[in-house]
């Protein structure tokens, strides 16, 4: 089994590569991507399409499209203005980051220290996997290397006697008190 360890590690790496590709792509929505605005009217739905990816800076963990604060309504108004001016979702997002900081994103920005947020879970998983693999490989060694008897275990004699005494007494007492 161990001779094929490199293969196994390669598989693990592949899995993680796939995970990173996923990360890079991000989940797609079944609906179409935010529609490119023709010069026409900006509807509430268009605004919310952008707002779905933003988080209310005054609340914690409330998505902008579901937020009912006046401040959020004003943010949505600004989105409507910017959409009408022909800006796209990405530049609107950048504008809000500029205004309120990265907390409007709902996820750590992929830069600097915050990369760690994205990487560490997978690194930890990979390390755990390698550790597990090695442990398993060690356990899979031929069975004869593992002897059955343990010379180090305490002899049952006297100690067991004492324990049984204690158990009986406890049982008696418990029977008395229920």
């Amino acid at each position, binding site marked *: 089994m161990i001779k094929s360890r490199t293969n196994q590690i390669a598989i693990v790496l592949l899995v993680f590569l796939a995970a990173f590709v996923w990360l890079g792509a991000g989940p*797609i*929505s*079944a609906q179409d991507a935010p529609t490119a605005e023709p010069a026409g009217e900006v509807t509430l739905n268009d605004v919310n399409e952008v707002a779905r990816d933003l988080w209310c800076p005054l609340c*914690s*963990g*409330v998505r902008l499209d579901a937020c009912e604060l006046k401040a959020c309504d004003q943010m949505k108004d600004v989105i409507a203005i910017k959409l009408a001016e022909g800006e796209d979702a990405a530049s609107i997002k950048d504008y809000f980051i500029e205004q309120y900081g990265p907390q409007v994103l*709902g996820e750590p920005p992929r830069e600097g220290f915050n990369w760690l947020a994205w990487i560490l879970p997978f690194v930890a998983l990979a390390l755990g996997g390698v550790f597990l693999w090695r442990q398993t490989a060690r356990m899979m060694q031929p*069975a004869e290397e593992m002897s059955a008897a343990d010379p180090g275990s305490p002899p049952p004699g006297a100690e067991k006697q004492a324990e049984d005494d204690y158990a009986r007494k*406890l*049982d008696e007492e418990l029977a008395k008190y229920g």
Partner: protein
Amino acid sequence: MIFHIGYLILVTATVLAAFGMIAGFVGGRQRNVKLTLSSYHAVYAMAGLVALAAAILWYALLTDRFEVAYVWNHSERALPVFYKFSALWGGQAGSLLFWLLILSGFSVAAAFFNRRRHWAIMPYVNAVMLGTSLFFAVLLVFAANPFELASFVPQDGMGLNPLLQNYWMVLHPVMLYIGYVGLAVPFAFAVGALLSKRLDNQWVRTVRRWTLIPWMFLSAGILMGSQWAYMELGWGGYWAWDPVENASFLPWLTATAFLHSIVVQEQRGILKVWNAALIWMTYFLVILGTFTTRSGVLESVHSFARSDVGPFFLVFMVIILFGFLWLLFKRLPLLRDEQAIESYTSREAAFMANNWLFAGIAFATLWGTFFPMFSEILTGDRISVAAPFFNKVNGPLFLLLILLMGAAPLLGWRRTSRQAFRKQFTWPLLVGAVTGVAIWLLYDAGYPAIGLAACAFAAATIVQEYVRGVQARRITSGESVPAAMGNLWRRNGRRYGGYLVHLGIVLIAAAVIGNEFFQQNTNVTLANGESVTLGRYEIAYTGLEPNRKVNHVEYGARLMIFDQESGKTLGSILPRRNIYDKTPEQPTSEVGLRMTLIEDTYVVLNGWETGGSTATFTMYINPLTAWMWIGGLVLVLGTLIASWPHPGRRRSEAADSVAYAVGSAGD
């Protein structure tokens, strides 16, 4: 006066818990019968005192004694009795008392049901349970006294948070607390087993059921919380990866991992250290979760008001973390594996992979939950880590987990032969592949096709196992199909109940995938009589219906739902807004919901012109959501079947203890 007595009772309980804890530890160590018995009695007496304290607080709530600051802050005269009752866990101090009450209940149950068994372990179990009780009693006495009196007698209370005035919100915390607190029992057993060096399979078997039941309540509590969020918060979703939600999810993850790996220990005598560590982590995460929701270190919509409990929790967490670790390191030589793993394609290897994934998800969730804290400390920038992060990181891991869930039952213990491999995997893989291709062709959507294919694979595995089990019974005993099914559950509940739990999880996963990838929504303002088309429906607004209730006014907007093609009336729904008298600036929302097995029509009333001539709505079509709740029911049913005492086993346990009694008497 009575409230002074209430406080005095808490003080007494603190002293008693301290005494009982010491009695348990010393009694267990010195094998002192008197002290051991004292620890039992302390457990019972403690429960009595705590119940009395809770009764006094309930009395204060139900009789509107607003001179008690807690009642003043969390109740009001006009509050319906039902919510006055539930206000006990509506605020910081009261919910800590409630925690303690449930903990005492579990302590009594653990002590009582095991009073004839595990005689070496039980004094320590009592001691650990009382130790935890001691901690919460200290909190109540020193940091969050529920009986604190106001300096004057207010005329009326401030009212309960309107968001909590919902029957799901009454039930959900109770379930969650029972699950959460109950996980202290397996920890107590683990400490007891380590301290007493009784590390054989006995305690493992006992602890499995004591984990399974809290786990079931925790699962149900989490799902009910989702249900509440879905119905009340009105953003079309059910889970936001909020720190408080994560706090309940983290111990669930490690407890689930534990429930799986404990099977391996039972069957093969390996993973002993890992199992002990999992229980320890689960218990630590319970305390950590309680700490984070109550200390303000993480921002969340669900947090309690800040208070001084933080430092106490820190001390307690240090004791748990390092005390247990010290004990575990000391006992490592006794925790050697008894057998080896023989093949990567074996059931035990699959269980290990399962634990690896669960631990990975738990770590990612913990890391993401606390990352804003790390980031702010180190970079000074405030960031938020919410659904986008967790979906991206945990999504693929959950996918792997579901695949594994499908594959693991098909593998044999020790190793799987090539022949068995083919026989076991053909059908499930086929079903999964067909589902995936069908969804991909129908909807041209890659990720949901993969996800639902995995779900179909796992479901097909379960069906195949059931079909084989029923067939085998029919061949050997000629039973009818229902009878064979019943017998499978009765005689082999652990296995076939476990499959039901898996099925519940598959259904929940399918609902999540449906919601995540196929949700449709629109925002509209409709005049009275006007309608809008969404998905397969035409939805018409037919007027506003105000309705005066005891402590609030309900404004409902009547909507008729028609089938868009045939024009047939499908039903009517009434999304509502509640404006509470005490907190008019904080209206709550009740969504209008038409639930079907295929999809939910889910409407939030956002606002209206005076008189309701026009109203604004957010409307969602949420596919497959009903299966989340059905899956929850299946999961609970499966857990009950899996933990139901086996008729034969009960006899053998009784026989065990008789044999032991006879044996020891004969010595």
